[in-house]
Structures are given as C-alpha cells and as structure tokens.
C-alpha cells in the first residue's frame, strides 16, 4: 500500500443512479429554529441567547427542553407585549432596557445573541441593527450578535445554521499565504470533538479549528487556504458565509456510522496528503471497534423497515447508515430540506430506489406511513405516542440531535438508539 488517501466517495455531481427527491407541501410538524438554543447554549459556554418573541416562543423552548432547569439558564425570552405593538412603548428602547437588565444580572456573559422569531420578523424589528447599537455600549466586554430562529424561515436545526453564520464575520482572518487549514463546522458533543481532535493529531493534521468553539473568545481563524468540512448536514447559510470569507468546501459524507466517519476523515486526509499507510494505521482500531459494536445490532436490525418523518435534516445520512451498515429497509425518508450539493455524497451512497420526500404534509404522510406497515418510525415528539398507540414502534428524532452520535466510538450507540424501541417491545409481555 502506498500513495496518499483519496476520497472514498465522489465529491459532487449526483450519480445517475442516485435516488430522486419528491417535494411535498402541507402542514409541517417540525420545530422552528429556536429549538437549537437548547444545545447551542450548552456548547458555547459563555454565550447567552435572548429570544425576542412571544410567549409562544418562550413556551416552545421550555417545552422542547423538557424544562431542564439549570441554576439559571443561559437563555431567556424578551416577550413582546401589546404596549410594544401599539407603539406605546418603543420596541427598540424596550429591547435596550431588557438587555441592560440582563447583562447587569449576568456579568459572566461574553457573547449575547439576540434571536429573532416570527413576531419580531413580522413587526420588522431589526435585530441586526439593535445588535450593532447595543454592541457600541457593551463591547469589548460583551459582543452582541443576532440571528433568526423564526418558524417562518427556519426549521429546527436551521437555527444552528443561522447562529453559526452570525459568528463567521467575527472569525479572525488568516493571510492568503497561510498554510492550508481545516475547519470543522457544526456543533458536536465535547466528547466527540475531543475524539476527532485526537484522530486528526494522529493523522498529523494539526491545523484544525472547530466552529462553534466552546468559548466565544476562541473563534477559529479563517482565510482563503481554509477548507471547511461539515460535521452537520444542516449548515447551508453558514457554508455560504464561510465561502464569502474565502474558505472552500471539502465535500464528504457525514461522520455517522463507521463508513461515514471513515469517509469524512478520508476527505481531510486527502486534503493534507496523509500517506495511505498512516491513514489505515490510525483508522484501524477505531473502525474495528465500531464494526464490532455494530455487529450484534446489525443482526437485530437487519431487514427491519424504517420510515422517517422530516425533522433534523440528519435523515439522509442516518438513512444511509441504517441501510448500508445495519441492512435496514428504507420505506420513506422524509426530510425538511435537501441541500443538493452538501448531500451529494450521501445521495450517491443511498440505494437508487430510496423514496425521499422533502417538505411535509403531515396527514398524508401519516397515511403513507400506516399503509407501509413500518417496523420502526423516526418522528417528532408530537407523533410518537399516537403512533405507538396504534401499535407502531417509534424512535424520537429529537434524541438524535441531543445525543453524541457522530464518530467511530458512537456508531454503536447510534445503532442502539434504533434498536432500543424494538428490544423493549420484545421484552414487554403486557
């Protein structure tokens, strides 16, 4: 074996045999982008998220989080009331007052996000201007940025996309002559991030940054020699912002499952011309562990049919993992949105006859789901119990966003998430 690592999967251009995508419109049963605050505030530990919205927005976040009450959470809502709407109070003055109140209370905060919502957008409250204005009073102590998680513009995980995009202009610049650097984009659990760092080190790739950083003061640098590798599949706007800063996309399948993770590292290794031998040596042990962990789960899940309702945009990579590494049968893969070029490597790996639905008409989709007699359904919290009550096994999709599932060491855990509902059903005799 010699030479350097090459891409395992074709970079762009959907293969002729790639599955086609059907688009559907109707009632969507998906959270809005505000939901991302739940994991983002755990990730960036000196940031505060202030939603400017309605009581509905506040209620959404607390319901989706299951009211995980931390001492005092690093998120809150500035609830717009009728005084702001009728013009009795100037909404901008009110916002300044709330921000002052908040920052006085939380001197530990270094980065404040003003997060837009449907109501703030419909009344055209310009949060980017508000952020500029407030920055003037609070920088350098606190940086104030804005993004929108509104349900009229974003679904669920797109909130993270908008949040990360808002950080891109603040990333330090690398000069044009800087050596090639790698930027990993998309929030990963710290434990996963640490594993990835160790693997990059072992491959001899040391020029790696992560966005988002754990601390807002440690934004990675970016320049024309930066190649970004997506760790999450829902980062369209952020990718665009990175390209405006000169970075270039390094296409790859996503690091879910042993195969996906291997492809992902191979993309990085190819960029840095890592010798094939070294690559194989580094990957050998973790791949073997992942395969061993997957083996018993493959026995259990092989042949089981699965139906995805749209939720996190993780659906295509998950479907690829489940079908290729666990031999599950894909009935329908619903996803809120398909980014054709970011998804090209995934589409290329999916069975050519995969039924992919983009968008949603929840009632029609439920009809199709029931008719297809699925062995397992991946869906949101609103649909899970009703389907279970009809005798259909379900896996809550939200858990896939909150649990560390990326990388070799988590491949078994990821498969286990799908196996658990079935195991449980087998166990119960009531």
């Amino acid at each position: 074996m010699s030479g350097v690592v090459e891409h395992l999967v074709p970079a762009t251009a959907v293969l002729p045999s790639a599955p086609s995508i059907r688009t559907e419109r109707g009632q969507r049963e998906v959270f809005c982008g505000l939901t991302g605050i739940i994991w983002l505030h755990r990730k960036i530990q000196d940031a505060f998220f202030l939603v400017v919205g309605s009581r509905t927005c506040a209620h959404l976040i607390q319901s989706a989080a299951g009211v995980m009450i931390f001492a005092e959470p690093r998120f809150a809502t500035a609830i717009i009331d009728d005084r702001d709407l009728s013009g009795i109070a100037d909404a901008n003055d009110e916002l300044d007052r709330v921000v002052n109140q908040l920052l006085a209370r939380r001197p530990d905060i270094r980065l404040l996000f003003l997060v837009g919502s449907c109501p703030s957008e419909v009344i055209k409250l310009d949060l980017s201007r508000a952020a500029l204005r407030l920055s003037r009073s609070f920088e350098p102590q606190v940086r104030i940025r804005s993004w929108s998680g509104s349900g009229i513009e974003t679904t669920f995980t797109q909130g993270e996309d908008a949040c990360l995009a808002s950080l891109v202009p603040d990333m330090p610049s690398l000069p044009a002559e800087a050596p090639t650097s790698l930027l990993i984009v998309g929030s990963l659990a710290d434990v996963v991030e640490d594993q990835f760092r160790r693997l990059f080190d072992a491959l001899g790739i040391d020029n790696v940054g992560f966005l988002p950083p754990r601390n807002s003061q440690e934004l990675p640098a970016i320049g024309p020699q930066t190649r970004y590798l997506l760790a999450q599949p829902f980062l369209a706007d952020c990718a665009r912002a990175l390209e405006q800063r000169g970075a270039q996309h390094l296409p790859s399948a996503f690091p879910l499952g042993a195969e996906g993770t291997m492809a992902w590292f191979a993309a990085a290794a190819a960029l840095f011309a890592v010798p094939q031998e070294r690559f194989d040596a580094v990957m050998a042990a973790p791949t073997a562990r992942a395969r061993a962990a997957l083996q018993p789960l493959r026995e259990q899940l092989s042949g089981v049919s699965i139906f995805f309702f749209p939720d996190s945009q993780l659906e295509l990579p998950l479907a690829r993992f489940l079908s290729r590494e666990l031999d599950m049968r894909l009935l329908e893969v619903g996803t809120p949105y398909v980014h054709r070029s970011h998804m090209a490597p995934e589409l290329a790996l999916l069975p050519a006859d995969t039924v992919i639905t983009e968008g949603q008409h929840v009632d029609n989709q439920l009809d199709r789901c029931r008719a297809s007699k699925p062995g397992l359904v991946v869906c949101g919290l609103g649909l899970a119990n009703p389907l279970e009550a009809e005798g259909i096994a379900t896996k809550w999709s939200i858990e896939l966003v909150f649990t560390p599932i990326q990388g070799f060491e988590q491949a078994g855990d990821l498969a286990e998430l799908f196996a658990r509902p079935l195991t449980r059903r087998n166990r119960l005799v009531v």
Partner: protein
Amino acid sequence: MQLTVWTYEGPPHVGAMRVATALRDVHYVLHAPQGDTYADLLFTMIERRSARPPVTYTTFQARDLGGDTAELFKSSVRDAYERFKPQALLVGASCTAELIQDDPGGLARTMGLPIPVIPLELPSYQRKENWGAAETFYQLVRALCLPLAPPPGTVREPRSADRRPRCNVLGATALGFRHRDDVREITGLLEQLGIEINVVAPLNAGPSDIRRLGEADFNVVLYPETASPAAQWLQRTFGQPMTRTVPIGVGATRDFIREVAALAGVEIPPAVLQGDSRLVWYSRSVDSTYLTGKRVFVFGDATHAVAAARIASEELGFKVVGIGTYSREFAREIRDAAARYGVEPLICDDYLQVEAKVAELQPELVLGTQMERHIAKRLGIPCAVISAPVHVQDFPARYAPQMGWEGANVIFDTWVHPLMMGLEEHLLGMFRNDFEFHEGAAPSHLGSTTARANPTEVVTAPAVVELQSQSGEAASEPQVQPAASGPTWAADAEKELRKIPFFVRGKAKRNTERYANDQSVAVITVETLYEAKAHYSR
C-alpha cells in the same frame, strides 16, 4: 417587553388546545407557523395522550406572507373538515398570525361549512393560557347553546318533586392537573347525594353534550380558571346557579357538600358529610405532632393555592409563611387569603422573583408547581406539587385526585412524604452529634441519593427528552447568593449554632441576626444567641 426565563402559562391558544383536546368531535384550525406545532407534545408526551390533539396548523412560511396566507388558511379548513369530519370547528390565530390579520373567523364563515364554526379571538400579546381556555370554553358553550336558550327574563321552573336534581360539572380540560381523577371523585360524591350528572364538560364532551347543558338545574364549577365565564353565562342565560366552593381538602369538601345540597334541594346523609378521609385521623395521630408549625410557602394557580393554604393551616397544622399566584386574573382571591394568614401576597409570573421569595422566606416545605419544584430542589427544601404547570410524573398511572375525600388522602401523603417522618426528626434532634445523623442525612424513606441538595450543585432535570448536555456534564452556573450583610458571627457563637438541629438552625440563625440588627449588635456571641432565643420565645 418582559424578560422571561420560564413561563408558568403558555400562550392563550394553548389554552384553546386544552379545551379542544378535551372535547370529542371538535377540531381546531390554528393559523400558525410550523414551530407552534410543538404544543402537540404537551399532550402526547407530558399527558401521554394516545392520539394527536385535534388541531390543524396552517404552518405558513415567510414566502407565503407576500402571497396569500388567507387562501392557505381556507384550504387548511377545507382539508381538516374533510379529513376529520368534526361536528364543530374552532378557528383562530396564534401570536404570529394575529399580526398578519387574516381574520380566520371571517374567512371560515364565508366557506359555508355545514357545522358550527366558532371563531376565537385570543389576544396573544395580552393574555395567557388559562384565560384562553376559559374564553374558548365560553365561546363554544355560547355558540352551541344560545339557539336553545329561553327568552331573556324567563324564570326557571322549579324542579318537579319526582325528578332527581341534575347538574353539570364544568372546567376539566386536557393537560389539567389531576382533572381526570377529580371528575371521577366529584361525580361519585354528587351521585351519593342523589344528584344526577347531566354533562361533564369540556372533558370528553361532544357538541351534542354541550347543547344539553341548559337541561341541568345548576352547575358545579370545578376549576374557576377555565369554567367561570361559561358558568356565568349559563347562569344569566339559563338561570342555572353555580357553585363557588372548590372541594379540595376535608373542610372545603364539607363546605362543597353543603353548598351543592342547598342548590339541589336535597338532604345530606350525615355519613356523606362526615366522609371517610384518612387525613382527619392521620393528622391527629401522634406522629403528625412533628408537622406542627412547619413553615410552608404556597404558590400556584389561585384555586389550588388558596385551597392548599387552607389545608396546610387548618388540616395539617402548618404555618403559611407565604402565598402567591401567577394568575393576575385571580389576584383578589390570593390577596384575601394572604390577609387571612397575615402574609404578603405574591402576584407574579416571574420565576426569578418567586425563587428570591422562597430563598428569603426559607420555608420548610414548598407547595407549588413544577417551577417551584426546581426552585426547592436547588435550595434544598422539600417540595410537593399542588398546581399546574406540571410535568409527566404528575399524570400518575394510579387514581390520584386532589378533590374530595380521596383527594385529601392523596394530599396528606404527597405533602408529608418529602418531610422527615416524625420520629425520625425527633431522633435526629437527640443524636445530632452522632455521625450517622448529620444534617446531610435525607429522610430514610427517600434513599441516600436524595440527600439534601448541595446548594452549589446544578440540578439538571430532563423531562420529556432525556437530554444529554453536549458537554457531557452540566456546566456550573452562577448561583443566586443571599446578600451577606449585617452582623458577623463570633467563632464560639457559630460553633454553638451548629449544635442546634439543622432543621431549626436556619430559623435560629435568622432570628438571631434580626435580633442583633435590632439591638445594633455587630458581633454575635453565644450570649447574643441565647438572648435572641429568649426574646423570640416570649
């Protein structure tokens, strides 16, 4: 604009959903963006309902805003009617749709559906969940019953002697705190009194049941928060009187029986009035001596808070040191109750303010909502839940009403459970220097893992979702620190203080400091400690 960390109530359309979901054969078309569909999980996850709420959301997007959101609304109504074939339709807007002013009521009316269409105007930027539920129930009752109403001014005919008295039981909704079981308990009690149940609503009632509301002699209002406006309208329109007493606790249940019997014109069998709640004896048994004077803080919706305070004070012998509610609509009830117990009322829906109040009062037991459960957990104070908002474990599998005799039993058990058992507390006092009886010791029946929360520990409590924080561990968050001002403690006085059993130590410390303050003593000595003790025990 109001800075809000956690909210006690959702927006008013969630109240409307609680009514719609409780009903049968009614569908609700809500003009709302996709994120608002989160509300479904309140019912399917927290209440573990086995069916989706009967709600269609239009889920309009930004790109629809320029175009025709009104047309989208109409096609959603059409589809919902065809698919679900409801007997009545509720239509309305969530906060965002309220701003785009499509007038869902007007649009739906033009569609000529062959069923009653009830428009809901729920001002999202002024009102909240309970108000929304009450308004929805009222609008529904009015729309369905008005055509059957007698001409205004008609005097209700007295019930003929050969017919049993009949009542409606109003207010129970989906996602209500123990509503399912309260209805069973109270309908059973009413039947023991020889009173027939005409209709229970909204829980499990269909439009045809609602139309029969006028046939009852009177209305039992179980939850004024949701049923008052409808009951008042029925009183005006059909001349049906309504009950005022909410039967939570032994005393209130007895009052309720008397009130109902008077409205129904029936004799009360003495055994029924006596009831068979074990609370009465349990509270008099010697073990309960140790409950005497326990300082409790009460917070919740007004109905449950007022009832809890009465039980705490009259039936368990606690001392109410604070009472409050998040529902401004019922501020008066809470002010009256606060006056009865000689405490300041707290009318507020700011979680942080409630937390500060609890920290200040240092009660020995908190009776509150799931928010107070978190506050209490953090402050290391025992807590029991008495009111919505509640979480999944407050929808227990077993029969666990709050109302009536069995409700009193349930309340006795749930409130006393988090406390030290009487004898145990006594032993702790006697052997306070024994290594196994240290202050961190938890009540033995709660197991070692529930040792009094270390106040610097962060409590993460995933509920619906088993959240694994991405960092793999809970990050530490700054704590609310009580202001450290006032007199200082001399070392020997502090040592002496530590000899006082921990469960009264907080009080001793506060009293001594207050005494020192009043006497302008800067350094507290052992002397000061005992002077203060003597002062306060006079």
